[in-house]
C-alpha cells in the first residue's frame, strides 16, 4: 500500500540559509499529524513545500505516489509546468494563520470560487456544495456575509470550509488559531476535531499543545530544520525522549 504523503530528504534554502535540512516523513490515509516546534524550526515551511507555496531545492514530496512540483529527467531536476502544479495544489487544502478570505466576496462566494474555476462545477452545484460545507462549520446563516462582517473565528471556519469543499486528499493547517482572540480559538478547534473524526487526513502546524495531544494520531517535533522527535502524542508529551523536546514542552506550557 502506498502512503498518502511521502516526504524524502526535503531540503529548503532561503538564499544561503538552510531552513529544512533533510526531512523525511511518511503519512497514511486518515492520519492526523501535529507538527510542533519553536518558531523558526521549519514547521510552516515544510507545510508550504507540500503545496508548492515554497520552492524546495532538494528531496521529493509525493502525494498518492504523485511527485509534487518537480520532475527529474536525464538527471536534471525541473519545476513542473504551472498548470500541472496548480492541479497538484488542489490535491491538498490549506488553512492559513491569517485566514486569507477574499474580502470582496461573500462567505458562500469564497467557497464557490475554486469549485467553479478549478472543479468546473456549475454555479448551482457549487452553491449547493458551498452551503453544505458552510453548514458543517456552523455558518450557513452567514453565507451572504462578507469576511469583514465576520469574527476572526467565523472567518477561519469559512476558510476551512473553502479548503475542504475542494475535496482534498490532505488538509494542511498552518497555525490556524494563532491570530485569534483566545475566546475564539475553541470554535475553530472543534471544527478541525470534527473533520478528524470524519477520517480526514490532516497535517496540523500548531502551538495549541493540548489540542495536538487530544486530536493527533502522531506528533512531529521539528527542531532546527530537522525532525527532532516523533511518536504518538502520549509518549511525546508525557515521556519526551530528547532534551530538546522536554525543554520545548516546558516553555510551551503543556501540563
Amino acid at each position, binding site marked *: 500500500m502506498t502512503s498518502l504523503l511521502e516526504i524524502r530528504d526535503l531540503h529548503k534554502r532561503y538564499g544561503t540559509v538552510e531552513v529544512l535540512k533533510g526531512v523525511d516523513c511518511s503519512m497514511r490515509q486518515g492520519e492526523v499529524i501535529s507538527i510542533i516546534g519553536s518558531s523558526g524550526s521549519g514547521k510552516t515551511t515544510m507545510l508550504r513545500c507540500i503545496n508548492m*507555496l515554497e520552492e524546495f531545492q532538494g528531496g521529493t514530496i509525493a502525494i498518492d505516489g504523485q511527485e509534487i512540483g518537480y520532475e527529474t529527467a536525464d538527471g536534471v531536476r525541473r519545476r513542473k509546468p*504551472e498548470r500541472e502544479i*496548480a492541479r497538484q495544489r*488542489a490535491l491538498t487544502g490549506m488553512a*492559513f494563520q*491569517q485566514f486569507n478570505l477574499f474580502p470582496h466576496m461573500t462567505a458562500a462566494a469564497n467557497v464557490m470560487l*475554486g469549485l467553479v*474555476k478549478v472543479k468546473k462545477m456549475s454555479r448551482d452545484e457549487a452553491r449547493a456544495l458551498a452551503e453544505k460545507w458552510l453548514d458543517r462549520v456552523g455558518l450557513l446563516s452567514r453565507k451572504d456575509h*462578507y469576511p469583514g462582517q465576520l469574527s476572526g473565528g467565523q472567518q477561519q471556519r469559512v*476558510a476551512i470550509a473553502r479548503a475542504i469543499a475542494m475535496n482534498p486528499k490532505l488538509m494542511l493547517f498552518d497555525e490556524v488559531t494563532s491570530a485569534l482572540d483566545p475566546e475564539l480559538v475553541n470554535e475553530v478547534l472543534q471544527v478541525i476535531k470534527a473533520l478528524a473524526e470524519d477520517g480526514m487526513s490532516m497535517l496540523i502546524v500548531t502551538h495549541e499543545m493540548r489540542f495536538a495531544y487530544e486530536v493527533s494520531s502522531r506528533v512531529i517535533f521539528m527542531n532546527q530544520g530537522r525532525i527532532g522527535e516523533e511518536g504518538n502524542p502520549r509518549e511525546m508529551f508525557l515521556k519526551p525522549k530528547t532534551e530538546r523536546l522536554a525543554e520545548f514542552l516546558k516553555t510551551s506550557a503543556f501540563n
Partner: protein
Amino acid sequence: MTYSLNFAAVWRSFDLLLQGLALSLGLAVVAILAGCVIGLITAFGLVSKSVLLRKPAGLYVTIIRNTPILVLVLFSYFALPELGVRLGKIESFVLTLAIYSGAYLAEVFRGGLIAVPPGQREAGLAIGLTEMQIRTSIIIPLMLRNVLPSLGSTMISLFKDTSLAAAIAVPELTFEARKINVETFRVIETWIVASCLYVATCSLLAALMRAVERRLAVPR
C-alpha cells in the same frame, strides 16, 4: 475702459461648443480605455519578479511620464510622419493620450497591486487556481477597489488633457472656444462658458466615480 458682458454671440455658437465637448469626451473615453489596458499590463510588468518585464515597463513609464504631454502630442503629429507613420489628427491625438494615460495609470495600478496582501494570492494558489485566474478573480478586483479614489482624479486630469488637442487643430472644446473667441471677440464670455463646460463635465465624472466607489465598497 469698461467691458460689458454680452453672452449673445457665445450662445449663438453654443452648438459648436457642445460638439467640441462631445469630441473631447469621445477622445478621452477611447484614449483612457486603451490607457487602462496599457496601464494594467504595464503595472503587472512593474511588479513582476522578472527583470525582462520590469525593466521595459519602468522605461516606458519613465520616458512618457517625464515628457510634457504637449511635446508628445506635437511629436506624434509632426515628427512621426517624418518617420513614416502617418496618422490623422484625431488618431494621432488618441494614440498619444492613450500612451500617456497608460504610463500614469500604470503607476496608479501599481500602487493598488502592492497593497493587495500576498496571502490573497497564496489562498488562490492553495485552492488550485492558476496565476491568471488569481489575477482576474482576486487581484484585479481588489486592486481596483484600492485605486478608485486616485483613479477618479487621474481620469479627470486626463480628460482635461484633451484640451491640448487644440494645438494640432482637433476640433474639440478648447479649439472651438478659441475659434469663437477669434470670430466674436467676446473673450471673457467665451472662456467663461468653455470653463463652465469643463467644470460641469469633470464634476459629473467625479460624481460617477464616487458612485462606482460606493457600489464596489466591500461591506464590513
